[in-house]
């Protein structure tokens, strides 16, 4: 019933609506663009009957660190479509792409300490473990768990062997850990909503 597919730029309108209705955080539009223009393979939406977007996952490859890994930036599912395993499907799609397209070794994410429902999803269903606690991560002062999940990794199998005739080493699809400059004014951390 729900189709999990890669997000397009046009989906952004509905994705931000999901965000408004599901999460206390809100991201700047630039930040969405930063994701979709850099790692379009890591953005998925759940599209219901009639083409309505009912959930999304927004993820990226971490550029700073030496170990190639992915990061889940935001995950949301509309209330009308909870308990259908959509969050799990969205997360799995993004994690698979991190692994298969970018060869990520692990994936990280932040979750509010108080968000028990999400915490349970990450630990029990998806196999994440607490790696650290980030004090006052959220704008309203709440702490975040820094969670990680090991991926099988090292499946970065595609076509390295083909580029013998190239002058430059290619990072496929724009490259994990490519150290390229970040977009200016990127809102790296979620800002709290007014309430």
């Amino acid at each position, binding site marked *: *019933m729900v189709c999990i597919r890669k997000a397009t730029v*046009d989906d952004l*309108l509905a994705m931000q609506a999901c965000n408004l*209705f599901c999460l206390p955080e809100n991201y700047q539009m*630039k930040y969405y663009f930063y994701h979709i223009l*850099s790692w379009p393979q890591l953005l998925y939406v759940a599209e219901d009957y009639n083409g309505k977007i009912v959930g999304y996952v927004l993820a990226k490859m971490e550029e700073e660190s030496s170990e190639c890994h992915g990061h889940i930036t935001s995950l949301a599912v509309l209330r009308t*479509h909870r308990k259908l395993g959509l969050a799990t499907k969205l997360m799995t799609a993004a994690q698979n792409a991190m692994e*298969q397209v970018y060869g990520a070794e692990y994936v990280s994410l932040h979750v509010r300490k108080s968000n028990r429902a999400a915490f349970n999803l990450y630990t029990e269903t998806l196999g994440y473990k607490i790696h650290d606690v980030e004090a006052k991560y959220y704008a309203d002062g709440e702490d975040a768990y820094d969670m990680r999940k090991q991926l099988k990794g090292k499946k970065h199998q595609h076509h390295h062997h083909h580029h013998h005739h190239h002058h430059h080493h290619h990072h496929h699809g*724009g490259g994990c850990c490519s150290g390229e400059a970040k*977009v200016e004014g990127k809102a790296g951390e979620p800002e709290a909503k007014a309430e």
Partner: protein
Amino acid sequence: MGKAEEALSVCLNAKDQLYTNDSVLIDDLTLSTLQIVFQRLDHLDMATSCYEYACGKFPNSLELMMGLFNCYVREYSFVKQQQIAIKMYKVVGEERFLLWAVCSIQLQVFCGNGGEKLLLLAEGLLKKHIASHSLHEPEALSVYISLLERQSKFGDALEILAGKLGSLIMIEVDRLRLQGRLLARAGDYSAAADILQKVLELCPDDWEYFLHYLGCLLDDGSSFFLGNGGNSIYPPKHVGCKNLDLPDEVFDTRISRASVFVEKLMAECDNASIRSPHLANLEIQKRKLIYGKGDPGKLVEELMQYFSRFGHLACFTSDVEAFLLFLDDPNKSEVLEKLKGCELTSSSQTKALGQAITIFKVENLIGNMFSLPVCELEGLAVRMADMYCKNLPVSKDLDLQENMHGEELLSMACNVLVQLFWRTRNVGYLLESIMILEFGLTIRRYTWQYKILLLHLYSYWNCLPVAYDWYKSLDVKNILLETVSHHILPQMLASPLWSDLNDLLRDYLKFMDDHFRESADLTFLAYRHRNYSKVIEFVQFKERLQRSSQYLVAKIEAPILQLKQNANSIQEEECILESLKNGNHFVELSNEIGNKLLTFNEDLQLRPWWTPTFDKNYLLGPFEGVSYYPRENLIKQTEENVLKNIEKRSLLPRMIYLSIHCASSSLKEHTEANGSAFDPKLSLELKVLLERYARILGFPFQDAIELVLGVSSGQKPSEALSSDLIGWINFVVFLNAWNLNSREIGFSNNDKPRPSTWHLVNSLLKKYIIEKMRSTGPLLSSPGGDLPMLVQLVTEPLSWHSLIIQSSVRSSLPSGKKKKKGGVTEQANSHHSHEIQDSIQSLCDAIKEVTEWLSAQINKLDDVKFETIFSLLQVNGEGQGPGRILHMFENLISSVDNTALGDRISQALQSWDAVEVARKVGAGQSSVLSQFLRICESKIKSLQALRTHL
């Protein structure tokens, strides 16, 4: 010198050095620094020319060429992008530069004015490269395939996909989806169905691909051609059936193949949350019916099966909506009866609650609530609220941020109460509908559905400040400004809350303009990350926003607001007009509107049933039942109205400007106030615009004049102008200004003397202001009403007319430089001066009546005791009438059981204060009236001051 000028001068100096001094170091760092500063100063072209110069000097520097490419990306110069990318490709032979070039070609075709033939060039470039170097990027492959697909070369694309390059697509199911689509588009439905079957085996919950699969089985690939509507936030996904003349036996075999496959999927998937195969059965039954081979009873049966499995889910009703509506009325009723007869024996309380809610929703969808008797309807609302209260303990352990179980019960009860209000006009139901939402928000303050309903209810009841507060609590920002602000913006445009309106427009325009300025920078990000398809999507998205109808509305309404705010001072108004280039730009906008393909990005699905679009509110008219479908027609009508409105409103600034000039020249024989000669072209131009304005109102110029004269003299009913009252009165005001100079109307008719156009304006303004004031009624007991119309009459046509008076008065003042003229001119001037005096008097009289009325209303609201408001909630002797739900809430609070409800909910319940809500209603209305009163008073003051000049 300001900082910006200083920066510009430093950069220009550097640029000169660059061009003239050979010893100056030209490197990318210097150039990119210059580029950043030039960009901030809005001089992209200068940055580009620096890079162009540098590239000319060092023709093979890759770094500089990339910088130049980036400059062209910022300027959306697709052709130049292509040229420099090709050059880079030639220098280093890298695949990515070729793809930059190909992408630039695609942009010329999709977003520029390049012909489709260019795609052939792009294809050739890629083909040549592949022959010598093959391809190495997954994105490169998808660009190549999309090029072929766009040119309908499906066979070629399939061949590529099947070959070595196909392995570039890393995710198996993605490749299969692509292959299936290409096969279907090539017309090979049988092969496509086989491939799509594999897709479904891998992703059994992929509904979209199930529909494609079923389509292909029935030799119908049209679902692949739906594409994206482009102009709507929700692209159409409705699947029609094209191929209805399939031979019987073929249809039977194919559809039973689908059935068998779906059975297999169901047997294999052990995941209880997968809905697609179950829904597929419904779709199969529906198709059978469409092909005339079905049995509606089977569809009903499948619906019941689906209910027993997924009936507790909030998405159930939207899942089956299309199937329910496909049934005829007796079958619909059968479903409803069966659902009501179901024993909800679910093991968990939340599931049972979910099922019960679903039944309410289905009843709402097909039960034709509009034909239920009032008492039944009321009972329904009470049952919903009762269920909400009884199930509060289920939500006891939830976090504040989690949605409560049964939240939608209060929205549904509110919807029913609003209908009751519409039918009975008993304001108590309206109050109660507000109360229950406020109650729900007391328990959990995050429920956005309640907030949206509330903001519409408060708007309707002339409590705009409270509506605006709830809107603000939604925290609408970023792109949501484009999709969500329609909930409040239209009401605000017609309100006296100028400062809030100003904030709204400013924030929205700032967001959009910032995006247009910054988006090009982001485009380069996609090039750098080699996500070529995203480059195209992104540029198209930017264009979609640029063509946004709401953006245009805001662009024109922001200056109109400024003009409204400053209409008491002609000097300030002239400054504003000057900053608007005397309105010329907006006239151009109006000219172009017919050729523009505007986009409508508003998310209308979240609007309440009684106001499905922003220019429709059923509550303003008498009860006549509502057919929810087809909503498309309604939306189409709204979109046409928006276009017409933009075309009309963008003429205003120029017409105001021209009117001021015509008025100032009327008195002193073609000499303007400042002594300069009046250009007769201005009067001609005003006439042309008046003709156009009349045409937008739906009449030829002469007919429009006859109509307003007819209404003014009482020969035509006053409703004749009601289709667009503000538009018509504006027309009259500008008509008078034009006539002051041209004198074409009024004295030429020999049969009977016609009143002057001054008189026409006076009489119509006064007539409608008084009429609208009377029909507005006391706000508390008459929601809806004509207050917004009254506000607009005073703040628009009346204000523009006062500007015309100001201009006339100013030109009648002795300028000092010239001597007074005598004779005929003086006589005419004296006559004219009388007319001005009369007009001022007439306006003052009208506004005075309004201010007196406003003061009385405000006093009344201040005196209103809460009992008065509560007396609206009166249950009659038979236990019927508004107030039953509120009473239920009070009982709940008086018997709160902390252990059952948990601390959070118990405390929230204790803090509920119905009196506070009633007070808010009164205070909100009073605030709107006070702000309007202030506007009116300032108008009287300025008009009276004018009189002393005469």
